[in-house]
Structure formats: C-alpha cells, structure tokens
C-alpha cells in the first residue's frame, strides 16, 4: 500500500542551475550540476511550472482544471519530477489514494490528456559520448573507455578488458 502524501507538501520547482529549451509540445531541461537532461511533456511541464513552493498537490490539481481524481496524476507527476531532481519538498509517494500507477494512467487517459511523461538521461563526458564500452580484449584504463558489463580491466603493463578468472 502506498503512503498518503500530506497536503502540507508544497513542492517547489528547482529553477537554478538549469538550461531550459522549449519545444512545440515538450520542454527540455538540463541540470548543470548533475548533468542530467530531462524531457517533460506538456502536462509534466505545466505541473513543474506550478510548483512554486506555496501550492499543495490539491492546489496544483485545481490550477490544472482537473477533478479530484486528477490529484493522483499530479502526485505521480511530482514523484517523477522529484526523481529527476526537478522539484523539492515533495515527500509523498504517488499515487496517493492506493491506486496503482497503471490505474492512474488509465484514469488520466479516460478524462484528459493528463499523462505525465518524464524522460531523464545522464549526459556522458566527451570521451564516454564517443567510446561506448570496451569489449573483451579491448584496451582499458586511463584514456580508454570503461569495460563492458561482466568484464574487468586488468593487466600488468597493457591493461585490457578480460573476463573474471581468465589469465
């Protein structure tokens, strides 16, 4: 069973240290601190912008013109935004009324286009962006891409990605 969030929750959007790019129906947000890039659909972006630290979940729901069942969707959205480090002060788990996430989405689909979509990626460093991971036998260590999962980087002089236990 999921915890009921307190109405005292007054989530606040993180606004500093961000690069925001508006698209036609989406908003892209890049965090200069965590190097996470997040894509919000229109609904999530509206929720994010309404989080000014004074509104509760119910207030946000009303501002969006949703009925009481919409509070579940707003809470789910806030949970996703909090996970993406885009809001603070939201401590409740979502959905609040004991519904499953699927039920909330289904309900949101039935009444409105209030579907929260929050996609987050960590942007790699320049080397990581081009190198991927090293396969078995690939050079590794300083200046090289890290080994792929299941391989370890070792070697006395020339370090290569090897399977654990291989000599």
């Amino acid at each position, binding site marked *: 069973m999921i915890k009921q969030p307190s109405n005292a929750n007054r989530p606040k959007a993180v606004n500093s240290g961000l*690069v925001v790019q508006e*698209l036609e129906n989406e908003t892209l947000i890049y965090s200069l601190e965590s190097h996470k890039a997040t894509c919000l*659909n229109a609904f999530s972006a509206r929720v994010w912008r309404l989080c000014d630290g004074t509104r509760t979940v119910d207030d946000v729901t009303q501002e969006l013109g949703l009925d009481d069942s919409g509070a579940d969707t707003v809470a789910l959205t806030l949970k996703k935004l909090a996970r993406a480090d885009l809001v603070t002060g939201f401590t409740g788990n979502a959905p609040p009324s004991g519904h499953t996430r699927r039920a909330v989405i289904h309900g949101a689909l039935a009444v409105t286009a209030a579907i929260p979509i929050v996609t987050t990626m960590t942007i790699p460093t*320049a080397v990581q962006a*081009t190198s991927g991971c090293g396969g078995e036998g690939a050079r590794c260590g300083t200046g090289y891409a890290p080994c792929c999962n299941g391989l370890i980087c070792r070697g006395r002089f020339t370090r290569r990605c090897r399977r654990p236990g291989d000599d």
Partner: protein
Amino acid sequence: MQTDECSGLPLALNERWHTPCYEKLCKLNWVAGFGVISHGVKIGVQVSDASLIPILRERLPSHAEPYGGAEFDTVMSVILGGQDAGSRVRRFHLVYQNHTEVCRSHVLDEALDRFDAFFALAVAALSPQRIFVHGGAVAWQGRAIVIPGQSLSGKSTLIMELVRAGATYLSDEFAIFDSEGHVHPYPKPISMRKTPQSRQVDVPVASIGGVEGREPVPLGLVIVTSYEEGGRWRPQPVSTGEGILWLLSNTPAGRLAPERALRFLGNAATSADFIKSTRGEASDVVPLILQRPEASMRQDWLNHSLETEPSNEAHRS
C-alpha cells in the same frame, strides 16, 4: 597541408584548460610543434622527436587549417618511445591530451590511432561554431538521416549499406549541426572493424560506388538503433524531445556547452522524425529506411517491420 611551426615550446594552453599537471608535462623536452585550427578549435601539437612531425601532419583531417597563434584550446603531446641501439630498454610511445595520458603503447600505430581519435574528439567537444553528434550521417532526397551511437554499435556498417544503396555519404563518425540545424559533412573514409578488438580499416567511399556530400542538408530522420544478432526491425516513433536527448547523449560537447547543444539540436529537430529499433543485418534494413518518400518521411513508413534471420555480422564499427 600547410601548418605553422611553433617557436614557443612548450605550447601554451589557454587559461580555461591550463592545470598544474600540464605545467609538469611542459618541463619535458619538446623539440618541435605546430598549430592548426579546425571548426574554430585551436589545437597545438608538440613532440619529443622531430621525425614525428611529418607523420602527424599527414594524419590531420582535411578540415584542419594552419594556425600560428601562441595559445591553444587543447595541446596534443606525443613522446616517441622505442628501443635505442645497444640498449635493452624499450620505452613506451606516449600520447597526452593537455595533461591527460591517453595512450601508452609499445606499438607506434596504436599511439598514432589514439592521437587521431583524441584530435577529432577535441574538435568535437570544443568547437564554438558547431555541435558534433557522435554517429553516422547520409543525405537522402535532400534530407539528412542521422544514426547516433557509440563505437561498436554497428553504425558504420549501416552507413556503408545506405551509401551502397544510393544515399550520399556525409560521415560515419560525427554528424555536425550548425545553428540552423543543418547537417554538415565530416569528410573521412568509412572506418570498419572486422572484430571489436581489431584496428579500424579505412574504406574510401568511392571504392563502394558511393558519393560524398559537400553541402549541408536539413535534418530529416534520426534513427536510434544498434545491431543485435537476429534483431528485428520494428521502428517505433520517438518524441522530438526524447529524440533530442538521444542526440545529446552522443554529443561530446553535451556537458561543456549544453545550452548551445540544445538550441542547435532543437532547431534541427523541428523538421525531423525520430525512430528507434534494434536491427539485424544492415542490408535487410536499408531498403526499408530508404523507401520512405521524402514527403511522407513520417508515419506511414513506421508500420513496416522486418524479421531478419540470425546471422553473424562481421563488420561493425
């Protein structure tokens, strides 16, 4: 290629990148150097042995122009190793980018390959004029098809098949975006590997009957894909925002210049479609990609799917 010799050795890094560790590297005995500028990035090259200069110059990309300034955005330093006559000591060949050692090898070719890779990476990460996305690109019916992806994801194989099928080659390493969102060519041969561990082999585009693009083209399609043995081609549309995240996650300058990267990629994405799918053999997938008429490069084509037979794909890069 003409380059300017640098008299002031060791070469000076600009303030942003200068570190105490680089000062220590500067204390080594650098005997020759030169400077080039590429896509607005000033790159210095200094070596411990003058015999390396012609070798390194020959390996520079065609877009590198001579630069005679005193300060650089990045400095590549190469120390020649090997064995002296009468000595039993074998010294490593070493390559540094700024103060970071990027290669330590007894094999000179390996060190030179790393020099090439980090030279290209420096241009891609630091260019003030363009945004480089790691991936392949071709032009088809006046629009660019970009396939972002890391090394060994199979993008070069797919690019090669697209070129064989009539697409115009733009790049197999970087798709270069300008402020208007147009994709520029990055002229170089297609680099193929027989195995993930083997060295890359350059395949001239003309040798496979392909044509190299010279002009920038607007972005038409971005394909997020990677080879999987027996993979099924089932393209799913991706939203513009999520597609831009995919491009950004393959952008070397993504962390250094996120604002510019998002703006350039956002401009490019306004007229583009984004799809994702795993794929099997490139030769099976290419007809499905290219059969999309330019005008309907959107939904109708997305319904196509192809099941490919499991088989080994030898050439991936």
